[in-house]
């Protein structure tokens, strides 16, 4: 067993609001192994983006308060001083964001934006940084990279811009890439290309990826392991195949059931999960999913279930076994 490159323990993120403290991430713990792709899945407001921004200290504090530990190669990211965390950002851990249309600076050329981390972290001079920027654009599949390096973001399509973001992400050969809804804003064919691209780069460069998404279709295609997040806490964690097959947690089950199935009876409506995610300023005392759970019992709304082992490397936060629930 190798050492995980990232080990998150009891990560808690809360925000001070007028209605009291909003607890957006509640005691999140997970590991990322070298070279693996971990998918963090959840609906809007489940705390998936916030938890990843917190890792790199990218949340403004205050209003945010971040507690817990995130050991990256043994060093706690959350305890790092400003200059320490800056030497990790974009260098050893890179992040790609959701919207490629707004994530690049409109008044700087893509070359300028690519060269910045190269100069900053690798100490390259202007000429070699520029050459590396062109190589990177080439690597992520941008045609005639040498000419396009001096273009501005608005001269690229959405998919091409996301490729630029990826190039920026891998510029300094990071160990870990965090992709936050990186393909959500793209059309399906572009999405597939980007996913392929990241998969290829991952096998070439051996980097680990945290893939944050609400798209279970994408997860099935690329992830090794999946963490299902709800109300800022893990509901279920397993390797991708057992998770999809066993669907131990009622939330996982409901999420997968809400996907459209081709060929199913067409007049059937999608099986949406009734209700809304919990208000983070008023988290229910028991299981966060209990108010929306079709199988909830009285104990569910009183006592929060612990995350427990339910099979080989399969964790689930539910009081019940599937056999009891889905008989």
């Amino acid at each position: 067993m190798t050492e995980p490159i990232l080990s998150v323990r009891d990560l808690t993120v809360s925000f001070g609001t007028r209605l009291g403290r909003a607890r957006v991430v509640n005691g999140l713990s997970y590991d990322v192994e070298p070279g693996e792709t971990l998918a963090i899945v959840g609906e809007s407001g489940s705390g998936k983006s916030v938890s990843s921004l917190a890792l790199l200290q990218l949340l403004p504090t205050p209003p945010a308060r971040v507690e817990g530990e995130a050991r990256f190669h043994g060093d706690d990211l959350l305890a790092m001083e400003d200059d320490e965390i800056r030497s990790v950002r974009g260098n050893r851990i890179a992040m790609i964001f959701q919207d490629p249309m707004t994530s690049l600076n409109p008044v700087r050329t893509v070359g300028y934006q690519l060269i910045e981390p190269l100069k900053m972290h690798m100490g390259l001079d202007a000429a070699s940084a520029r050459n590396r920027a062109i190589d990177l654009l080439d690597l992520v599949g941008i045609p005639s990279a040498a000419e396009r390096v001096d273009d501005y973001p608005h001269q690229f399509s959405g998919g091409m811009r996301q490729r630029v973001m990826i190039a920026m992400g891998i510029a300094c050969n990071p160990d870990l890439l965090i992709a936050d809804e990186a393909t959500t804003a793209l059309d399906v064919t572009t999405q597939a290309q980007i996913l392929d691209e990241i998969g290829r780069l991952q096998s070439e460069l051996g980097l680990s990826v945290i893939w944050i998404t609400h798209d279970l279709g994408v997860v099935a295609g690329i992830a090794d392991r999946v963490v299902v997040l709800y109300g800022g806490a893990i509901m279920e964690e397993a390797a991708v195949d057992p998770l999809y097959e066993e669907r131990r947690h009622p939330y996982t089950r409901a999420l997968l059931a809400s996907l459209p199935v081709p060929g199913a009876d067409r007049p059937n409506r999608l099986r949406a999960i009734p209700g809304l995610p919990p208000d983070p300023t008023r988290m229910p005392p028991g299981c966060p999913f209990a108010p929306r759970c079709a199988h909830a019992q009285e104990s569910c709304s009183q006592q929060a279930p612990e995350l427990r082992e339910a099979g080989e490397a399969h964790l689930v936060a539910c009081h019940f076994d599937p056999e009891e629930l889905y008989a």
Partner: protein
Amino acid sequence: MTGYVLRRIGQMVLALLGVSIIVFALIHLVPGDPVRTALGTRFDQEVYEALRARAGLDQPIVVQYFTWLGNAVTGDLGVSFRSGVPVTTLLLQRLPATITLAFAALFVALVVAIPLGIVSAIRSGSRLDYAATATSQVAVSVPDFWAGIMYILLFSLVLSWLPPSGYVSFFEDPLEWARHLALPALTVGLISGSIIFRFVRSSVLEALNQDYTRTARAKGLTERQVIWRHVMPNAWIPIVTVVGLQLGFLLSGVIVVEVIFAWPGLGRLALLSVQDRDFTVLQGAVLLIAFMFLLINLVVDIVYGWLDPRVRYD
């Protein structure tokens, strides 16, 4: 970029032509006969007719317009009815004072507004931000004539540091030039500065909250680099617009302040020419002011194209 600039210059010429028609039409539609005003109550009808003919006022209005326009292009804006001095000479006498005051006021405004606006945005919600925002609110609300009088009372009458009014050319005496300039520049500059401050603060704040700023931080740049390389280049774009508008406003004559400080600028000249129905002077002054306004707009647009690559390729 060259095509963009040429196109903008073409637009400016058209706009200027439009302004000239409006100015000419408005002044000729306003009741009141300049020749009669110049001659007083008792006059000879023949002299009156002769003067009208000399000024071309007996011609059809369209002919008058084209004559005036043709002369204006060559720099001849006619002769003042009141004093008989060429309008161009009058305007050129007044222009240095106006330009001096406008740029001095803008200097005061920018020195106050830009650093304070940036710091307020970066530390939004801090005490400094609240204090600066509240002060700017007060400064915008206080009328310029009242502020001007208060400065005169304080700095001239009580403290006797600065002269209360008047204008001295820089080439005559640079020290006195500065001493006379200080109070009017402060009066107008602080008002302009308050307006500019609010724009600086809000556009920096907006850029700070953009996704690309988060990207820049996620790259590992220092906060200083994030602000100067990524936030400010975007924030300048709206700031340039408001600075251009403010400069246009300052150049078009801050009439009230010119009157309070006995500042011999274009605004006061225009005001006097209205009182005297000296419409050749008024036409010339308005045309000159419009020209300066359009020129500033042109400069703003060129700066825009330089700051924002998306504009250049449209």
